[in-house]
């Protein structure tokens, strides 16, 4: 096998970009990487990506947070049981507040952590193929394919409205 080739299609329009991706995918191109300035639902749908695993992290973080909230409150109350106002040592009702807040805090934090982890952030260097345009007003679709499939990809990109198509040897 010869080295795969990366082809870039630059779009100005979200819809055209999405259509381009869909046509590529229909044509069997699966190694696609898209840079977009907006979190476009269309583009993501077109890529038919799986749902992000961060939600699992948030769920687990949230559950852990709530549990740790109860563990913290009950645990500290038991280390040194102080009576205050005649309330029971383990006063679950107020502890719910703490658990609730910790649930949200840890859920949020683990969500962010998962995002950074999966999104490979912070990133010190640019990904190959990134262009400053892609944070502004251009969508960039990189297709990785065998050298023999380049022509078709290029034409598919052009047909969907890419304003320019480039080829790069990876």
């Amino acid at each position, binding site marked *: 096998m010869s080295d795969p080739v990366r082809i870039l299609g630059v779009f*100005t329009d979200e819809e055209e970009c999405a259509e381009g991706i869909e046509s590529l995918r229909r044509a069997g191109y699966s190694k*696609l*990487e*898209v*840079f*977009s*300035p*907006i*979190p*476009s*639902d269309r*583009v*993501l749908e077109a*890529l038919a*990506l799986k*749902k*992000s695993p*961060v*939600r699992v992290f*948030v769920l687990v973080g949230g559950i852990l947070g709530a549990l740790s909230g109860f563990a*913290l409150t009950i645990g*500290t109350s038991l*280390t*040194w049981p102080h009576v*205050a*106002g005649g*309330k029971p040592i383990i*006063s679950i009702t*107020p*502890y719910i*507040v*703490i658990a*609730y*807040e*910790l649930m*949200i*805090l840890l*859920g*949020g*934090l683990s*969500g*962010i952590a*998962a*995002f950074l982890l*999966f*999104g*490979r*952030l*912070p*990133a*010190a*260097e640019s*990904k190959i193929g*990134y262009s*400053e*345009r*892609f*944070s*502004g*007003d251009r969508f960039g679709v990189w297709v990785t394919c065998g050298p023999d499939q380049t022509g078709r990809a290029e034409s598919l990109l052009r047909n969907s409205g890419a304003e320019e198509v480039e080829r790069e040897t990876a």
Partner: protein
Amino acid sequence: MAAVPQPDYHEIDRTVMRTLEWPGWKYWVWIGFLFTVVVWAGLCWVNQIYNGLGVTNLKQPNMWAMYITNFVFWVGIAHSGTLISAILYLFRSRWRTAVYRIAETMTAFAVMTAGLCPLMHLGRVWFFYWLLPYPNERWLQPDFRSPLVWDAFAVSTYLTISILFLFMGLIPDVATARDESTGWRKFFYGLVCLGWQGSDDQWRHYKGVYLLLAGLATPLVISVHSVVSWDFAMAQLPGWHSTIFAPYFVAGAIFSGCAMVLTLMIPVRKWLDLEDLITPWHIDNLARIVLFTSLIVTYSYLVESWMAWYSKDPFEVMTFHERYFGPYGYLFWLMVFCNCIVPLLLFSAKVRRNLTLLFIISLLINVGMWLERYVIIAGSLATNFMPSQWGFHTPSVTEASLTAGTFAFFLMMFSLFARFLPIISTTELKEGLRWLRQALRQESAEAA
């Protein structure tokens, strides 16, 4: 007929990036003024710490007065930011895109300011960390039954989540800014956006976590002001001890927060030349929220009084009687005027479109909502169970300075943010471009 502006991605970027240009001298004079006020307040605070809280006019029985009022006020201000950014995000309200960054920035700085207020108020601020659980040789931990500990948890969670939420929104925008700028700015923005590039994978996780954060922030925001309200509702004091406090405070918080968004947005939009992005349509929508929450707040006032009357509890009845007709009566009626009567003007579409009037109304609401908290806090404490121990607080120079300091701090932080980080979310505007265009079209049609 004026041409309908047809902004595209590039124009949006340009408009927003223009706000990040190096500001002129007027801006620095403004910042300098605010900084001076902050420094003055800081000196007053140092004096207060050094000499004791006796330099304020806090006294028996007004152990809490302006500092806690400021705290509740600023936490309340924070709320609308989360409402606009998170709740409306979940509801897919398209008009939020233009205003949500302003609101969210306001949230972050308002929570920060709010977090300072309890510190100002502590008798021994150097031990503030005893409020947090940490391992220590004394075996001592905070009492999780105390609403103040709930506060510490709620507010610090809120601060964390709202900053993260703000930061999440900022990432792609700052990436845009990075790519549009050069030199140290590029470096700085590069740091802030963590090297964001907007690949599909990143966006996938971004969208996932953003939605979930919005989902978490929504119950959070409701819990935070509920917890703040429980600072009062958990106490036995007539005028505080009330079951309706949580919804009442949350509504009041959103009310005051939206008013504050208006107060900030109307000048900012002019100052930073964002009239094309933040249209009267956006403002109109905000004004409707203000009107709606004002009605809730009015209803709460009525319910509160009704409950006092219906309970026939002599302490409650007396406290409310004093609230209306006692030495703080004038504050109460001023509050009613600001919070209940003035917002009724917003029923008129003309008023909602009249920015000057709207600005004045929003300022009055801010005053009214500050007074509401003051009347609840100082007023209820003033007429406590022991008639011999009643007393009425009057502000001192220190308290007034520190209060001014919180405003100056907030405005300074906001102003700095507005000129160094994107105050409008370009990404979301771009994403919602067609709604923006629609809004502009509608705007010009109405203008015609």
